[in-house]
């Protein structure tokens, strides 16, 4: 079964969604992310959706689920790279993505995560090399 790769980026995890998601893939991603957040003590999850041509309620629910689980594990979820046409459509569809933060791109998303967690843990040595 194919799975969506999860990369470690500082103390965050980066997921780039490049394929059309379907049920099994979404479920696998939710599980994999949960495990990796715990394993790496990650403070953030960046989900790059710049390749997605649409976001429907199925994807919306997946993003909401990931954000909810991450929050319980003390990690922020930031969705990055949403296309403008997708953003417009999402609003009309009625998806609020209430628990999900968004940023323009991966760099901005990382900044957001650092701002939220960096300030609280300024004295903790962050491993930038990994």
């Amino acid at each position, binding site marked *: 079964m194919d799975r969506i790769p999860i990369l470690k980026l500082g103390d965050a995890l980066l997921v780039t969604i490049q394929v059309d998601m*379907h049920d099994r893939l979404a479920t696998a991603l939710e599980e994999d992310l949960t495990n990796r957040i715990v394993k790496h003590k990650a403070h953030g999850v960046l989900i790059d959706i710049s390749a997605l041509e649409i*976001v429907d309620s199925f994807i919306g*629910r997946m993003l909401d689920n990931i954000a909810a689980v991450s929050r319980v594990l003390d990690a922020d979820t930031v969705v990055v790279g949403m296309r403008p046409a997708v953003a417009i459509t999402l609003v009309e569809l009625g*998806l609020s993505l209430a628990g999900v933060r968004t940023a323009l791109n991966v760099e901005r998303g990382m900044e957001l995560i650092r701002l939220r967690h960096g300030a609280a843990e300024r004295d903790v040595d962050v491993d930038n090399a990994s």
Partner: protein
Amino acid sequence: MSTTPPDTLPIRTSDDVVFVRQQVRLRAVQAGLGLVDQTKIVTAASELARNTLDYGGGGTVTLSSIDDNGRRGVRLVFEDQGPGIPDIPLALQDGYTTGNGLGLGLSGAKRLSNEFRIESALGGGTRVMIARWK
């Protein structure tokens, strides 16, 4: 009249839903719809195709390119022989779901379309027509 003849596609698997999205996108581009309008009709199609699969037990979608005196667009008809929808106004309410969804598919697809018509009979399946014009 329409340039490309109508096309009926099966909706039996989650891969079919992906294929439907691609075909709707092609039609929308052919009809000259702008990027936002393309995105709207493809998103609506994705919602309805998934409903056909999840609640209708599978079915079909018929895609047609429409041309009304030079005004072009795309029309989609989703049909299944599933259990039907007992209360359509209720099903069209934001947040109403009998599955574990967000309850946004039907109402959202309606908002994303210029035309929306739904027919359903208890035990007699469901038929949803949407259209988006340029």
